């Protein structure tokens, strides 16, 4: 027999914690009503009694009904006849006391029998009572004294009280069940909140121009917070987005092992087009080799339509096996990430296509003049460098790079005879030459996505002192893009060979920039430009040489045709 402290109810044959708790909750009411309260199993075996009840009940009635006790057989016989819809049954099993039994139901089944005991009005040491006391080793005189302390209850009242306690107990059990249900729902809700906030966080990071590796790194770290796993990784095997697999967390694999795992996962995810769950890696023929590093694996595909682009995988949940909840969560994350991935791939494709077209266009322009080979690309690089130096944001810097590439696009409209003339230009020829910024601006005006770089093209021949063309704007009225490209353009012109002269040495070009600061150039920009070290210039230009070689080849092809 074990006494459960919390309830004060003696419990044997644990009939469910909620029953014990419910009985403990209603026991004080029974004591107050002068009634004994017992709970028996459907077979009549006493499961619980209230040890705080009056001795008449706790020492005499309970003992009489005990298993192996004097009335066991009779009790069992009567208990078996209790049905879910049985009305209160009066049992005459213990001398001096009347019992009333009602069924306790859970899910329409009789799970227990609630027995109320009431003292009869005539309680005296009859022959029957003495005999029972002997068997229970109780003193009949003492028992009569104890009985005198308990009020008597009529059969009618006992039946009424039984119905009352039956419904009290039923309500208690129902409340307990509801509370349990509520807790379980709250738990599920908490998980749903967690997932929602995780997905929200991950989709917040879905900017297509973000570096892919950064996005997946953050996504893996975020998932690890919610899904307590030892390792979380990503594979991107599809040719559209291929990159090296990555693994974060505490599982350490060598590059070779990680690649092997990535290859296996890529193949399996491709085959299944669904998730892969292995809760015992060491006994799985395909993954036994991974057994010493991890025990469990969950992988889900990064999939768009039928195309598997890659996958996310988790290693070793800290709390045991991976289950359907983990699978569902990781699948949601993978679906979100796959949308990002597809968009990023499309964005990359479009971006590459556009940049390719822009480069072709500028190459075509540069090709019109053998001596300006690679000029546009160098101006773009220098402009980008300068823009970054003055602290412009990433996207502004990229736009300036593009403006640099296209700054001379208007030369398409200038005759080659003018562009390639070795001698001095006549005033008419110079007028033709001076039209190229406006022609360039007109060419770009029809491309909505390039509208914002027009100022760089239109104003790159304006001078800070207002003596430039085409508009004669001065000082800060000249858009910044124009001022930056002007500086880069002049510098590159000076440091390149031209039809009419050889390239100036770098130092000479720089001192020329210094000299023209404030007249031709924005002095603030010139100052930043002059702080760029000669080494940096050389490096910028060297980076560009490979490109230049390709352009030269292109020029030759164009000229030959």
């Amino acid at each position, binding site marked *: 027999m074990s006494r459960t402290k919390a309830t004060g109810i003696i419990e044997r044959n644990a009939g469910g914690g909620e029953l014990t708790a419910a009985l403990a909750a209603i026991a004080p009411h029974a004591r107050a009503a002068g009634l004994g309260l017992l709970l028996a199993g459907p077979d009549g075996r006493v499961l619980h009694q209230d040890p705080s009840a009056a001795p008449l009940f706790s020492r005499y009635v309970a003992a009489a009904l005990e298993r192996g006790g004097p009335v066991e057989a009779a009790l069992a016989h009567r208990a078996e006849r209790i049905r879910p819809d049985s009305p209160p049954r009066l049992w005459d099993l213990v001398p001096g006391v009347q019992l009333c039994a009602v069924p306790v139901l859970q899910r329409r089944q009789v799970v227990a029998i609630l027995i109320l005991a009431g003292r009869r009005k005539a309680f005296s040491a009859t022959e029957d009572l003495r005999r029972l006391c002997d068997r229970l080793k109780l003193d009949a005189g003492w028992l009569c004294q104890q009985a005198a302390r308990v009020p008597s209850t009529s059969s009618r009242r006992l039946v009424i009280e039984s119905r009352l306690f039956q419904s009290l107990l039923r309500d208690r059990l129902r409340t307990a069940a509801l509370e349990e249900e*509520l*807790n379980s*729902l*709250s*738990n599920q*809700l*908490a998980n749903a*909140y*967690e997932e*929602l*906030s*995780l997905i*929200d966080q991950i989709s917040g990071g879905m900017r297509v121009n973000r570096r892919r590796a950064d996005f997946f790194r953050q996504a893996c770290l975020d998932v690890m*917070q*919610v899904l307590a796993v030892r390792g979380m990784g990503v594979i991107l095997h599809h040719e559209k987005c291929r990159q090296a697999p990555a693994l974060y967390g505490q599982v350490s694999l060598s590059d070779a092992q990680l690649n092997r795992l990535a290859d296996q996962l890529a193949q399996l995810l491709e085959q299944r087009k669904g998730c892969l769950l292995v809760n015992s890696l060491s006994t799985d023929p395909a993954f036994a080799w991974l057994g010493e590093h991890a025990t469990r694996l969950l992988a889900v595909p990064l999939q768009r339509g039928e195309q598997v682009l890659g996958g996310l995988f988790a290693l070793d949940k800290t709390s045991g096996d991976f289950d359907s909840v983990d699978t569902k969560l990781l699948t949601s994350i993978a679906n979100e990430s796959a949308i990002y991935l597809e968009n990023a791939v499309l964005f990359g494709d479009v971006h590459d296509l556009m940049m390719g077209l822009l480069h072709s266009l500028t190459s075509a322009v540069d090709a019109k003049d053998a001596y300006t080979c690679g000029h546009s690309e160098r101006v773009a690089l220098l402009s980008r460098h300068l823009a970054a130096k003055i602290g412009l944001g990433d996207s502004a810097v990229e736009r300036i790079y593009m403006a640099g590439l296209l700054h001379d696009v208007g030369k398409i409209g200038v005759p080659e005879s003018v562009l390639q003339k070795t001698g001095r230009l006549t005033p008419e020829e110079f007028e033709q030459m001076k039209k190229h910024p406006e022609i360039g601006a007109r060419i770009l005006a029809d491309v909505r996505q390039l509208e914002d770089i027009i100022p760089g093209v239109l104003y790159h021949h304006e001078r800070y002192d207002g003596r430039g063309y085409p508009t004669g704007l001065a000082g800060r009225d000249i858009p910044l893009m124009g001022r930056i490209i002007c500086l880069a353009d002049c510098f590159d012109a000076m440091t390149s060979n031209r039809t009419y002269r050889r390239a100036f040495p770098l130092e000479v070009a720089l001192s020329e920039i210094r000299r023209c600061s404030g007249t031709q150039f924005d002095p603030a920009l010139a100052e930043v430009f002059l702080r760029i070290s000669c080494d940096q210039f050389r490096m910028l230009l060297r980076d560009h040489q490979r490109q230049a070689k390709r352009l030269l080849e292109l020029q030759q092809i164009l000229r030959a045709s």
Partner: protein
Amino acid sequence: MDTKTILVADDESHILHVVSLKLRNAGYRVITARDGREALEAARHERPDLLITDYHMPELSGLELCGLLKQDPATAGIPAIMLTARGYFLDPADTDGSGILRMLSKPFSPRQLLATVNEVLASGARAA
């Protein structure tokens, strides 16, 4: 260490249940209130160690609740974490001196809320 008591005020019962469950499982004693007025009563009687309150509530808003707690020396030191609808920003001028130490926007992560609670209570923060 004695058990810390946390008062959670929100008119949405599902939020109350989720927050209570998370905090109770972490060993805190939790009392709940379904509007600002009830929360004020509860705070005065129970003197919780921390208040977690929704901003939009009937009777008294979370901000008004914090303001009233602030006026009473007995409850002025109760630090608060405020939950707001997503995309809703409170003017820092309004929350200044209201005892609100942290803001979380719904849908919040219960894990993050618990972490925030642990952090605020461990730092022994008093409402500023």
